[in-house]
């Protein structure tokens, strides 16, 4: 069965520290990859996405992610976190190259940034 695994469930960092959140998926075909963020009290919103092309994608607020096909990974990174990055982060995978196919999420990672 399709699955998405996020290795870090709860991460605590100080401001200005670097961030890397792991995401692995279990499908060998064409995939579309997403990172969503949920700030406290807000709805889920897209952080960045990969469909094709350059495997290093940049998103909002200085976040980036790298698609490594051989490792089935799509890790999220940020060089220097801010207190406002405190949120829950979800990795998601959709199979295929069209708009069909369900979107599967990982368990989420709670990031707490200490001022």
């Amino acid at each position: 069965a399709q699955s998405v695994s996020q290795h870090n469930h709860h991460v605590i960092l100080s401001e200005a520290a670097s961030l890397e959140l792991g995401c692995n998926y279990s499908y060998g075909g064409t995939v579309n990859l997403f990172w969503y963020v949920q700030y406290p009290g807000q709805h889920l919103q897209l952080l960045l996405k990969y469909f094709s092309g350059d495997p290093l994608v940049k998103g909002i607020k200085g976040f980036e992610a790298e698609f490594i096909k051989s490792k089935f990974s799509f890790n999220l990174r940020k060089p220097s976190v801010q207190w406002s990055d405190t949120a829950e982060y979800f990795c998601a995978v959709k199979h295929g190259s069209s708009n069909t196919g369900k979107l599967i999420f990982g368990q989420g990672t709670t990031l707490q940034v200490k001022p």
Partner: protein
Amino acid sequence: GAGVSQSPSNKVTEKGKDVELRCDPISGHTALYWYRQSLGQGLEFLIYFQGNSAPDKSGLPSDRFSAERTGGSVSTLTIQRTQQEDSAVYLCASSGKGQGVTEAFFGQGTRLTVV
């Protein structure tokens, strides 16, 4: 409206009662998803509608759960004979207007509490 709208935003119900949760997707979006978000459980896929195709119901946890999408637009998730373990935030998302793969846009969710 411009975004995905869910109602009610909060619902408290007694164990054993039936509940209906409503989702109004973004106009023109062909795909509609329902997820359940419980503390520490991430986003659990429930059901996926794509255009006029048969829905993917593989995530529904029991036969007490059902969903329909009328006219390719509004969707209703029904939970019969609610149990305390059904307490969670139920999220709806839609995607798919235009060519190629697009990201899913989420509603604010319905917080269901079964007492």
